Each structure stands twice: as C-alpha cells, then as structure tokens.
C-alpha cells in the first residue's frame, strides 16, 4: 500500500475522478461509501489503481444482475486502512456477448465470486484463472439466475 495517510471518501472520489476523467458515468459519496458507475473498458485499470494507490485490499462481493436488456456486474471493494467501501457498477454489458475483465488476478477473494456469476448468468470474465461452473453441475446447460429462466419446471 502506498503512504499510510488515511484517505476519507471525498479524497478517494476525487483521486478516482482525475485518474479516469472519461470512463465514469456517475459518482456519489456517502459516509464511508463511494458509489461509482463505470463502463466496461476501464474496469481493470480502475481496480489496479484502487489496489495499488488507494489501498483497497479486499473484494467483498462480485455479483451479476440481469436487467432484461443488458447485464450489469456490481463490485464491492473495501479498504481496511481507509475504512471505505466502493461500489462499482459496470453497466450495459451486451446480452449476446457478455464479457468483462476479471479482477481475480488482483484479489484472490473475487475468484469464486466471478465463477459463481459465470455459473448463474453466463458472464465471461476474461483472464480468470479457472472459469468453470461452481454451484451447478458441470453439464448444466442453462444459466439459472437469468430472468428468462423459468424456475418452476424441471430442466434436463
């Protein structure tokens, strides 16, 4: 981690802002929270700066959302030193080619979360060390958490 000065959420928000002037669509700040909505392509660069410069050591959660027209992936990354949690929403991932950069190489904690998101939604994480199904059976052909998957009947 860089200098161990404690940065509160405003400083972190500005640091992110001037580091990535274009890719960020919206940014809000709340006590100990930073909410970001970004586009797909700057995700990996943003995560590396978060990890190296801003001292975010822990990925709390990676989850996918099926917005019927497109996919979304939501990252909660928290920092122990600054005691801040950033929520990054990667919006409009196209439905026919759902691909996002994987942040598993940066944080080991995201490994299984991304595998589960792939298992449930079919979002492919590029660069993930071992992207396979985690909870469902290996030969399960559907992605259960998608909105079009009707849970009420028996599937092969």
């Amino acid at each position: 981690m860089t200098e161990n000065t404690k940065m509160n959420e405003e400083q972190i928000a500005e640091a992110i802002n001037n580091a990535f002037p274009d890719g960020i669509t919206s940014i809000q700040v709340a006590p100990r929270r930073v909410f970001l909505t970004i586009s797909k392509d700057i995700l990996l660069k943003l995560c590396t700066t978060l990890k190296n410069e801003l001292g975010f050591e822990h990925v709390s959660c990676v989850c996918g959302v099926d917005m019927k027209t497109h996919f979304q992936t939501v990252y909660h990354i928290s920092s122990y030193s600054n005691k801040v949690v950033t929520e990054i929403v990667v919006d409009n991932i196209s439905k026919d080619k759902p691909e996002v950069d994987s942040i598993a190489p940066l944080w080991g904690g995201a490994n299984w979360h991304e595998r589960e998101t792939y298992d449930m939604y079919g979002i492919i994480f590029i660069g993930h060390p071992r992207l396979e199904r985690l909870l469902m059976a290996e030969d399960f052909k559907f992605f259960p958490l998608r909105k079009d998957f009707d849970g009420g009947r028996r599937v092969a």
Partner: protein
Amino acid sequence: MTEMWVNMGPQHPFNHGLWNLRVKLDGEKVTDAEPVIGYLHRGWEKMVESRDYQQIIPMSDRLCYCSALTWSHVYVSAVENLMEVEVPERAQWIRVITIEIQRLASHLMWLAAVGTDLGSYTIFLYAMRERELFLDLLTNLTGARMTYNYMRIGGVRNDLPENFERDTLRACDLLEKRIKGEYYQLMDQNTPFRMRTIDTGVLSKEDAMNLGVTGPNMRGSGVDFDLRRDDPYEKYDEIDFEVCVEKEGDSFARYRVRMREMLVSCDIIRDAFKKIKEGPVRVKTPRNAPVGTAFAHVEDPRGESLMYVMGDGTNHPYRLKVRSPIFVTVSAAPKMCIGYKMADIPAIMGTVDMCVGETDR
C-alpha cells in the same frame, strides 16, 4: 510414492455439512487441495425473487442454521437502506443485544465442532450445555430455538419479555466463569490440543486480506479490522469494546480470537443493557420498495456478510445478492491446507467454523 487423490468426500465425518475437499496426498503430506461445493445449493437467490420483502425474512434465517439472527439482520438492514427507513432507538439496542447473544451461541456451536473434530467429546457437551442457555433466552424472546423470524424491516417483532435482562446477565456471567474456568483448563491448557493446533493451517496477513478471508479467521492472522468498530451500524458506535487480534495466523490463533470474542460479546451485552431506553420497537414501513439499489454488510460470527438488494418499485426484490463469509474462506482453504499433514485438515477446517448452508445458498 505416487500422488493419491483422496476425497475427504461430501459425506465425511470431519466436515460439517456437504462439501468435498479433494486432497492430493504425497504419503501423509497434502500437496494440493481443491474444495468442491454445490451439494447444498437450494437456489436461494432465485427463490427470493418470487417473494415479497416481509416473506423473505424467515427465509434469510435459514441461510446459516447457527447464526439465523445475524443473517436476517443483514437482510433487514439492506432493505432499510433501500427504503431509507429510520429504525427506533430501542429496536437498534435490542438488535445489538440479540446479535451478540447469537454470536455467543454460534461461537459455542463452533467450539463444540472443534472439540469433536479433534477427539475431545467433553468440550462438545460442555459447549452445547452453555449454548442451551442462550437458545432458551432467544426462545423466550422470539418463540423459536434456532429459526427466529424476529427481525422486521424497521425494527423487531416484539419487545423484551420481563426479566429478560436479568436472565441474560446471569447467562453471560456463567459463560464467562465457564470460559475462564472449564474451557480454559480443558482446551487451552491441554498440551495435545496445542500440539494439534499450533502452527497448523498458517494463513499470513497478506494472504488473509487478498483472499478475502474475513472475520475471526482474518483477525487470527493479525488484521486489526472489525466491521462493528470500523464501519459501525446500529448502535455499535456508542459501545466501546476491544477487537481481539492474534498475530500468528495458525489454528490456535483463530481459536484464541474466538474465545476472547466471546468474552467481549458478554461485555457488549452488559454495556448495551445499561444504555437501552424505553420506546417503540418497530416502525411501519411502506409495502413497496423504491426503484434503486442498496447494500449492507455486518460482522457475522464467521466474517463479513453482505447483502446487495435492487428494488424495482414492486414489493418483490428484483435482485438480492448474498455474500457469505464462508463461501470465500472455503476458496482460501487450499492456501491453508497445502503443506500440512492429512490428519491436520480437521484441525484447520475445524477452527475456520464452516457452515455449508450459507456457502451454497
């Protein structure tokens, strides 16, 4: 000797619940480990999307059988953040007290499991005997022994029964006497227990943070971080308590962290009872949640549990993601188990306090 893949299979006496640790053995030493989960997958997140907000509360109790209250609390506070509901004072204090009682019951269940894994059945029965005290307290309060359905969006279901405070303080005093007396002598002072747990399953501080291991397992490796103190929710910012941290990161450190955490929980309960005031315990909340997203994360007895809820204006949640602490700790299990003997795995995975219900959801 050729490498031998041994399945410490889904149905194996050492693991609590259905998960499989495939272990590659070179003689006695573990050279590779690969956890396989999914045997208990109930499709919780898909079921949730067809129920309304109040009907999910009893379902969130059933995520992990030994810490039902903390799970329904994280769900309820996530929905409260979504609806911007302001919970009355007394309800927040009652939540702090019941969560700490639930933490004690969960840690005692863990202590019983560690005992049986390593072969001492007496500690199982002692821990279960103490746990009964706290289950009786919660039965008087909520009406059920383990699946409480006590938390409501905007407060709690009912107020404390009479002399609940007296019983709780008595139970805490007895538990503290027992921890410092019987358990301390039976487990800490027992050399075979120390031989089995010291320097087994060492998890360094960087690994703990990077791999996403949280809670007592992380504090056992020296990371001084506790959501109750560093990101306070409910009334934890008005309570001054000590976060127990151990530096060594082996199974004994994790064991020590949880034993001291039980003592600290007793102090928190005593402190909370001093500061609780009269007042309403539940506020009326709207039936439909606004469009938008919110999340809440709390200090579960096993780590950081987080719920991310997305509302779409109806009374059904559009998406409800559950982050279970043990789901991530199991992904870090190979890092803890490689290099140790096969007979160490129960000691390592025992002190990690597995709960497969919340892992597979």
